[in-house]
């Protein structure tokens, strides 16, 4: 129940809804007990032969009035309580989204997308349930339950009430117990189902291997076994699930029996009328739901508790990277200086970068090359403050990048990430992502610079073509070029290309680099690449190996050094001839 206390801040902010909702539940409870009373009056009237048309008419009208009033009241409390819960869901989803927006990439590395999604969907739904159905069942079982029991005692007979209620607590107990077991088994069934999901996923992704090794029938057998498990676990769930109704039937049946037995005794002794017996039996019917709900309540609240804790711990997470107090508002500009003594990933122990010192004058281009895992990407991402350097610093215009506001720093930088991520919207909106108010002319221009304009025009709806799963599938090279156009549109002080030309062919790479040189005269550019041709024209090239600078200089200087750079350059020249062999022969 403690989750209800934790949600108190919300209940307070929705005071009106909850107050009105609960008050109406009380009202309905009170109105509800009148109808059986009417039945009793009429029944006893019939029995005694004293019933008149007027009495019958009056009670009919009263019952009708109660029915209609209850109808509207029932509508209102639903809108109040469930509406509030719906607003809680909306609020939490927005907060969670906001929170995700302020988290650094590290956070997203640590958490799996699937889990984060589950928090935003299933967990929030469970919390909504707590704030809606949970509050309802609590209020309903307490309010309606008490009103009905009070009515039984006052309007009928307290001894009969006592006798009839004997089996009832057992129902609340049993449904709560069954609910717990059901929940556990249900979890297991879900896990088994998710195993089959994984299997299918693997099977479909590995279809080539499966076909190449003729494993189709074996896979079918495997799948069959997994499904047997799913069936078993689900039948285990059904075994518990099937208990609910019988338990209720039995408990209610016993209650009715006690009522009838003790009622008969009362009637024979003249302390009870048949009308009262009917009235009481109707009340008994009213009690089933609140008691049932009471057992159910524990399950709702239990789930809500776990979900609320998970969501809350997400919301409480402080961003790793934040503005320093008194951070500068201005957009940084000027010469770029890296003075990194050592950089170790959080929770890592091997330095990813050590002794990286270089200076890049404003307007110069830096090339960064080296093997996979040598630290190229890290070096670039440190500038974006995706991580912070603790030992020494990075300066722009003589000021540490940590002294600027994140917002300002990012304003200065155009970033083309390695894993070119596009959003599932139109090509135009993807290019204008960082500048949503860009004109079509501006978009066209940068698309031309990035050599993607022609490609886009060849799509069915041109710039309005939707990208991604529901739209066209773009090649890696096309995605990269759109990412480049996206960054160019910002015309940033510093442009970062993080191995973003890997999937474009040599000729296109050449034209893009040419265009960049012209377009970005006087502005700083940093290019990391596997293919050395991408950095040939750079003012300064650094070669990284295991996080250390092993060679440094211009292309010409590095070629003369005959080290790693030269070796790799020659090998790549050769490979490009092989790869494009067909074309070369054709020429």
């Amino acid at each position: 129940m403690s989750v209800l206390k934790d949600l108190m801040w919300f209940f307070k902010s929705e005071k009106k809804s909850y107050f009105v909702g609960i008050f109406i539940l009380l009202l309905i409870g009170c109105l509800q007990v009148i109808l059986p009373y009417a039945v009793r009056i009429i029944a006893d009237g019939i029995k005694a032969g004293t019933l008149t048309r007027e009495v019958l008419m009056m009670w009919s009208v009263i019952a009708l009035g109660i029915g209609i009033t209850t109808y509207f009241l029932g509508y209102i409390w639903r809108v109040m309580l469930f509406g509030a819960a719906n607003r809680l869901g909306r609020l939490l989803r927005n907060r969670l989204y906001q929170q995700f927006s302020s988290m650094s990439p590290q956070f997203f590395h640590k958490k799996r997308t699937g889990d984060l999604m589950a928090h935003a969907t299933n967990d929030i739904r469970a919390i909504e349930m707590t704030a809606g159905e949970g509050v309802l069942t609590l209020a309903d079982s307490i309010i309606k339950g008490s009103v009905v029991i009070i009515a039984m005692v006052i309007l009928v007979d307290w001894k009969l009430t006592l006798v009839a209620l004997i089996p009832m607590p057992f129902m609340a107990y049993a449904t709560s117990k069954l609910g717990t077991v059901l929940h556990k088994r249900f979890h297991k069934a879900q896990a088994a189902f998710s195993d089959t999901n994984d299997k299918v996923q693997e099977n479909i992704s590995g279809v080539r291997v499966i076909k190449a090794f003729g494993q189709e029938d074996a896979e079918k057998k495997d799948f069959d076994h997994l499904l047997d498990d799913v069936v078993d676990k689900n039948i285990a769930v059904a075994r518990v699930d099937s208990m609910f109704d019988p338990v209720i039937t039995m408990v209610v049946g016993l209650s009715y029996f006690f009522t009838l037995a003790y009622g008969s005794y009362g009637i024979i002794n003249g302390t009870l009328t048949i009308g009262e017996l009917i009235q009481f039996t109707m009340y008994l019917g009213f009690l089933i739901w609140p008691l049932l709900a009471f057992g159910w309540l524990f399950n709702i609240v239990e789930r809500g508790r776990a979900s609320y804790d998970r969501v809350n711990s997400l919301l409480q997470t402080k961003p790793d990277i934040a503005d320093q107090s008194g951070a500068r508002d201005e957009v940084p500009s000027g010469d770029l200086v890296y003075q990194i003594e050592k950089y170790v990933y959080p929770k890592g122990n091997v330095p990813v970068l050590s002794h990286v010192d270089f200076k890049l004058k404003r307007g110069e281009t830096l090339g960064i090359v080296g093997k996979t895992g040598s630290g190229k990407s890290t070096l670039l991402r440190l500038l974006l403050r995706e991580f912070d350097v603790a030992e020494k610093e990075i300066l722009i215009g003589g000021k540490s990048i940590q002294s600027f506001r994140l917002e300002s720093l990012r304003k200065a930088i155009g970033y083309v990430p390695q894993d070119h991520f596009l959003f599932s919207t139109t090509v135009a909106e993807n290019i204008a992502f960082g500048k949503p108010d860009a004109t079509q002319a501006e978009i066209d221009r940068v698309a031309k610079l990035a050599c993607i304009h022609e490609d886009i025009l060849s799509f069915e709806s041109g710039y309005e073509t939707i990208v991604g799963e529901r739209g066209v599938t773009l090649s890696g090279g096309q995605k990269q070029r759109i990412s480049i156009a996206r960054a160019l549109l910002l015309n940033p002080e510093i442009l970062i290309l993080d191995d973003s030309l890997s999937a474009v062919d040599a000729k296109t790479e050449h034209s893009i680099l040419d265009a960049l040189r012209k377009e970005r005269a006087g502005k700083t550019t940093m290019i990391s690449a596997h293919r050395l041709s991408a950095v040939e024209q750079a003012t300064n090239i650094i070669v990284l190996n295991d996080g250390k600078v092993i060679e440094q200089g211009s292309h010409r200087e590095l070629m003369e050094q005959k080290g790693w750079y030269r070796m790799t350059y020659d090998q790549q020249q050769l490979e490009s001839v092989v790869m494009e062999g067909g074309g070369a022969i054709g020429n």
Partner: protein
Amino acid sequence: MVTKRLISYLKPYQKKFWFAFFLLVLSTAAEIAVPVIASHYIDHYLTPRLLDWSSIILFSALFVGLPLLGAICFYYQYLAFQTIAQWVIKNIRVDVFSRVQHLGLSFFDRHADGSLVSRITNDTEAIKELYINVLSSFMQNIVIIIGVYIGMFILEPTLAVVSLILLPAVVLLMHGYRKRSSKVYHVIRSKLSQMNAKLNESIQGMNVIQAMRQEKRLHDAFSKINQDHYIAYMKNIKLFGLLLRPATQLLSVFMTILVLNYFGIMSFSTAIPLGILYGFIDLLGRLFEPINQMMMRLSQFQQAVVSAERVFTLLDQTEYAPAQQGNENPQITQGRIEFKDVTFSYDRKTDVLKNISFVAEPGQMVALVGHTGSGKSSIVNLLMHFYPFQQGSISIDGIPLQSFRNEVLRTKIGLVLQDPFLFVGDITSNIRLHDAEITDEKVKEAAQFVQAHSFIEKLDQKYHEPVGERGATFSSGQRQLISFARTMVHDPKILVLDEATASVDTETEEAIQVALEKMRAGRTTIAIAHRLSTIKEADLILVLHKGEIVEKGTHQTLLEKEGLYHKMYLLQQGMVEIAN
């Protein structure tokens, strides 16, 4: 149509189904009997004070025994229906999975993995809900409603007939709710999926969003959908409030008033046995919960039918993988491969291979060279008989490819893919796959043969080291070595090699090279080659361009041509010089 097909899946379980149905009727009858008997008890025993011990015991036994009987029957019928539903769903899943297993690669080319997975899992799950929550729940509730009416007929036929007017009112209400709610539900579902898509996308592209400072704009977009979802959901709450429980509650009040007036007015002229009133009121109380249940489940029905349609569409796919022609069972003994004028197209519009002809003699290596899209992979795909081809012929040992049984092709032609796909399991299971005839000994031999043994021995659990999703815990070089072992364990006659371009660490690279050399020895090899060293050793080099062989020859002849190969060779020499 869809419903009919769904019902046809119940056929194998007919007996159990009807037995469960019998229990359902029995349990309902037992439950309904209680108020009817109680009514009889009140009028004929209690009111006239005709109670002796034997009748007290009899009625007590009935009032306790009948609910007990009802509960037991209910338990078994409910469990039985659930069990049948589970079996049925299993059968549907097996059917659809099997169908997919035997579809050709051409089918997989055209369908996104994600949607196929969702067809086999989520859509079938929705059908399960249909069987359990809709079909069986409807059946149960209808039986209860019929039972209640029968009870009413026993007590007071005239009033029961009058009470029938409730049914059209309920149907009208159901129809109204279904019509309105299906639209609202649709909006809710689509908003929810939009919201999830947005969220998913934002999580994955957060670094771009942050780098471009678009957090606020995307949050606003998310908030908007969130708001739309809120509004749609509110509409649903209101609809529920207007047309569901509160509405049926109102109907029950109407019915009570009707019953009271019927008996009240009748009492003015004749004496009314009150037990009947008692029974009637009790039965009325049992009538409305089934109605509520059915109304709440209506919306699920529509959703499930849509899912079922999608599953059945997949089940009806007939784009099978190419099958063996003829009934003979030729074997591959030599490994001589011949392509003769093969022209091939995936979509029957643009040819990706044009007049490809070449011969690989037993034990020879043919290297396929050319850039992406030149047709290298298509040659491999055809040789593996992954796709049917229409023009030209491919033969192995002089026998047409189509005459071989699939098992023969799969064991005698070893395919090594560029991206080695590992399955969840352990190393042994990845080498052996599902073939029980491959002993641990053989697995080890194969691993030794491909130089994988030494790294495997260094693992904590050696050959039983667990392999996670896609083998992510292993380096790409190690993955490659494991996939080599998987191929070599069958000792194929022909090797089809899609050489990896990805760079791996030096140590593993060396192992890979040694392994490849050993694997090729004594086998006919078709290699999609990227490394010059591989190409140099080939007995025949095919240079492909736009689906055509533009140059063909051996290392020597191509060198003498002083064309491309010559150029490559010179560069190679230059590199050796630098390295020294």
